């Protein structure tokens, strides 16, 4: 990753990701509506929503709140830029963690009982998915090692592979898919922040966010969606244009499955989320490590 590629990635990600993320959100809403027997909003509805949020009267509970959310946005964008510039995977993960932390602190700082519950649940969500995320980076290192002979944490290395990473890391891919539901805030794991305001303890972590601040939260979510789909793509792509096509199709399929899961499962309790994601993580990672030892 040179400085030039980083700057290009930063600009491209900053500009393009919200559009892609917003379109994905729009598609998501249409498909979800059809699954529920509704027509659904127009494709560009998420953009109209955010536009409206930005036009609203801008109020906060105190001035730090908006500051924290802004920092969260900045670090999400930075994490994405490092990822798409082909940078170090662990660096991406750790910067993203910082972004998540600022979002949590933004909610805590309001001292609203509802936002606090949301923030606590968000922490439990982080605790649930973080082992898988770290171990994904670790096994990424192992996977590039067995496929190309040169183990690395650099994401860009996938483009010099002859086969996609999923060949070496099938179980880890499954594990990532499992925790992706938490990261995308999809039901059954949308404990901290449901898309349906009337349901879960008002609106969880974003209870006290309105206007421009809430608009920023939406935009953060778009950036995150693109970044996480990038993680999925990382496992499917290899060094040819067919690889890129396969990765794009794979990302679309995975997201469709996420929508199906979102619409078909009721929200679970945190105990189930924590235990299931830890068990899935442990089983998938151990199986995959054994798999690498046996097959390669």
């Amino acid at each position, binding site marked *: 990753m040179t400085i030039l590629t980083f700057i290009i990635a930063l600009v491209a990600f900053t500009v393009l990701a919200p559009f892609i993320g917003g379109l994905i959100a729009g598609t998501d809403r249409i498909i979800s509506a059809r699954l529920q027997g509704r027509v659904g909003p127009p494709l560009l509805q998420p953009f109209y929503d955010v536009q409206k949020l930005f036009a609203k009267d801008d109020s906060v509970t105190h001035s730090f709140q908006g500051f924290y959310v802004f920092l969260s946005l900045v670090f999400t964008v930075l994490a994405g830029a490092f990822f798409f510039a082909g940078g170090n995977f662990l660096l991406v993960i750790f910067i993203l963690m910082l972004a998540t932390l600022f979002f949590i602190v933004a909610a805590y*700082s309001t001292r609203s009982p509802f936002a606090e519950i949301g923030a606590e649940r968000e922490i439990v969500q982080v605790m649930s998915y973080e082992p898988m995320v*770290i171990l994904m980076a670790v096994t990424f290192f192992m996977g590039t090692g067995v496929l190309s002979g040169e183990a690395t944490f650099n994401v860009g290395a996938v483009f010099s592979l002859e086969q996609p990473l999923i060949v070496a890391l099938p179980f880890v891919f499954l594990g990532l898919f499992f925790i992706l539901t938490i990261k995308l805030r999809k039901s059954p794991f949308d404990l901290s922040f449901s898309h349906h305001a009337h349901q879960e303890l008002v609106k969880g972590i974003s209870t006290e966010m309105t206007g421009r601040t809430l608009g920023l939260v939406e935009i953060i979510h778009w950036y995150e969606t693109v970044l996480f789909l990038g993680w999925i793509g990382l496992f499917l792509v290899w060094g040819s244009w067919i690889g890129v096509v396969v990765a794009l199709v794979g990302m679309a399929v995975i997201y469709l499955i996420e929508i199906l899961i979102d619409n078909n499962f009721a929200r679970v309790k945190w105990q189930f989320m924590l235990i299931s994601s830890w068990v899935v993580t442990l089983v998938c990672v151990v199986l995959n490590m054994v798999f690498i030892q046996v097959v390669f």
Partner: protein
Amino acid sequence: MIIEPVLIIGLLLLMPLLAAGLLLVIRGNGGRKVVVVGFGVLIMLGTILLAVGYLVGDPWQGSFHYPLIDYCLLAIDVVIGLYILAKSIKYKKLLAGALAVAQMAGILAFEFLIAPGVSIASDLYIDGLSVIMALIIGIIGSGICIYALGYMKDHECHAREDDPTCKDRRPIFFALMFLFLAAMFAIVFFNNLAWLFCAWEITTVCSFALIGYTRTDEAIANSFRQIVMNQLGGLAFVIALILLGLQGILELDVVISHGNLGLLGLPIILLAFAGMTKAAQVPFQSWLLGAMVAPTPTSALLHSSTMVKAGVFMVIKLAPALGWNANGIAVMLIGGFTFLFCSAIAISQPNAKRVLAYSTVANLGLIVACAGVGTPEAVWAAIFLLIFHAVAKSLLFLCVGTAEHNIGSRDIEEMDNLFIRMPKLAMLMALGILTMFIAPFGMLISKWATIVSLVETGNAVLLIILAFGSAVTFMFWAKWLGKMLAVAGSQSNVETAVHRSEWSTIGLMAVLVIGLSVGFPFVSEMVVVPYLACIWNVTGLDVISFDNLLIMAIIVLAVVLSFLVFVWRSKKRTAPIYLSGVGLDFEERTYLNSLSQETKASQRNWYMDGWFSEQSMTPLANTCCIAVLVFGMTLSLLSLGGWSL
């Protein structure tokens, strides 16, 4: 300016001793202040002078052998044994007394029967690691002593309110603190293991006295728990001394350079065991938790710069002899389990000092695990974990201590809204917490290096432990941070009562935390990598690339600066929070409910008692670690008989 090494070591040993002697005699507040601040600053300058000369470069070793020193140190060993024996008779603690007798018998037998036959070439030793340790002891340790001036004044006042007749015991308190520093310097510089043992025992007995300082029943019980556990380590040390003496080796650097060969296997694990008891690794974590009854400066000193750091220093020293052998595997697993279980238990603790204690034990576990892995990359990580843990933890302890004296509680729930009540302190406490668990700050970068070193050695078990341990670490720090950073209402600022001595030390720690986080890539490049290159004979050590370290350093700077330049009074309209009804008092979170009755919304943090409670996790942790320890010791014993893995 480079000073003769023997001279600077002598200065660093004698200055704190002199200070301790003076503090014992001086009873006035003014005089004490002059001595503590004066000697504190002198010791800091002394360590900086040492760093100028020896931070980078080849290790130095030298002889300073006079029989008189041996006799004096032996006399000290015996006096310590007798002191513990006397105390254990007074308080009827048989086990402590028995261990003291066993230790005395062992050391006397060693000194008279074995030691005279062994020749020692170098008694003193300085390398990059000892200088880093000396800086930690000198700067952080002395800083804590200065902080204690203000803190102990309040402490004494509180004590007098409860019991007007109680005697002012501050002279002995400060004398012990400085004696502690002297013993720590000795541990760092002594290469002669018999000498090192004496310093080792002084730190044990000093912390015994400091933990029991308040003389409540709880304090005395906990001080005995500490002494028994550390005497076990001391006993292991004595046995190691005897075994090594029989083989004619009594210098630490020689032991290490021989590596883990047959007959040295057992002494090495015994020394590592001594280190792990001092570093409060499971199953010995309870002494450090018990140490929380002591005044906060004591806890800060024990946790951040001394005592436990002596333990990990020993294990890091032994790292070249560890690695993929029975000893190394035992050490890395004990460290790993300690990290995982203690991080998990920290979730269930509402008491801020106990959270800090569990986090200390957990992070020491990580350092021990890295040392056990025993590759240069892992030791790189261990050294940075050691440095950042020392500064961040002392910052946190001092902040919690000051908060406790001003808000009257060390319960995290009571720190709700601290951001309004003590804004500066809350900011600094937040800085300490961030440094402990999140990128781009020091501890997490060190953890990143740990991951790299583990994945390069293919250590799957520790990688999994580390991933889960990091996740639970996020949980307990983030919820504390959130609680503290809540902003509501306009409660009065109670920060004005904080002593200047407390501010100066807290400020110093904050500057160190930021400075080291920003300077991380340069410290690595200029100090740690050359040190490892020299000990391991490796060149071009590149754990985390310089670019990535630089990116993190820039982010640290950006986060800190953005807080500093952030405009407090933005023009945004502020609105009250939502409270399921007509809000009455947003600070108290009361509102009128649908029946027009006043209701109070209250919200406690999440402690997950059913999952991560002390009662359920501790036996599990103890079982795992004891099993590993027995495994390691057994294999080493077998290797004495020529059998090997």
